[in-house]
């Protein structure tokens, strides 16, 4: 789908609510035929570590707690489903990975690659970019 409309989401904040909203918008976009690229950087990238999900160690507010209490599909499940339904890729910011000393294996399986901003701009070129 080279001609599909493109949406790129830059996730910066680790807030559960922002990650959830981003995952939701990305999922719907992918399910509607758009090419979706999620670039997780700064503290948002912590939400894509296996350890964070295993320990359920989230920075979370009132709405996020309610989402969990009502067992709404979490962001990582939505992204996993979106990958089955359409074109959605998750990229981890290489700067953060390097300064934190993380490896690709530390990331959730939904993370496709570790790239820098230059590569991300190449991927995002010609589409809409949203920052959360």
């Amino acid at each position, binding site marked *: 789908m080279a001609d599909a409309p493109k949406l790129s989401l830059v996730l910066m904040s680790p807030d559960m609510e922002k990650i959830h909203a981003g995952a939701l918008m990305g*999922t719907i976009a992918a*399910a*509607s*035929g758009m090419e979706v690229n999620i670039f997780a950087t700064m503290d948002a990238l912590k939400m894509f570590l296996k350890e964070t999900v295993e320990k359920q160690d989230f920075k979370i507010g009132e709405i996020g707690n309610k989402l969990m209490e009502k067992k709404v599909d979490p962001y990582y499940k939505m992204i996993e489903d979106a990958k089955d*339904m359409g074109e959605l890729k998750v990229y981890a910011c290489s700067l953060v990975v390097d300064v934190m000393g993380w490896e690709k294996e530390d990331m959730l399986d939904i993370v496709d690659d570790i790239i820098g901003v230059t590569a991300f701009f190449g991927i995002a070129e010609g589409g809409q970019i949203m920052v959360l």
Partner: protein
Amino acid sequence: MADVHVDKSVDARGSYCPGPLMELIKTVKTAEVGQVVEVLSSDQGSAKDIPEWVKKVGHGLLYNEKAQDGDYWRIAVKKAK
């Protein structure tokens, strides 16, 4: 509604946005072209969101109405491609 033959029905009542849409998409994916998939949803957004998705991806919306026997919606989609 009575004259529509539903091939697959998905009961997504109790599931929150975008759960019913996701369930519908999964079921449409497994259906044959021309088959009708119905989804039952109690989520407030579905009645607006599902028709938008149907329009966007080019399937057919057969009906979208609030059920008489409860606080939920019945939405039927015909797989077009």
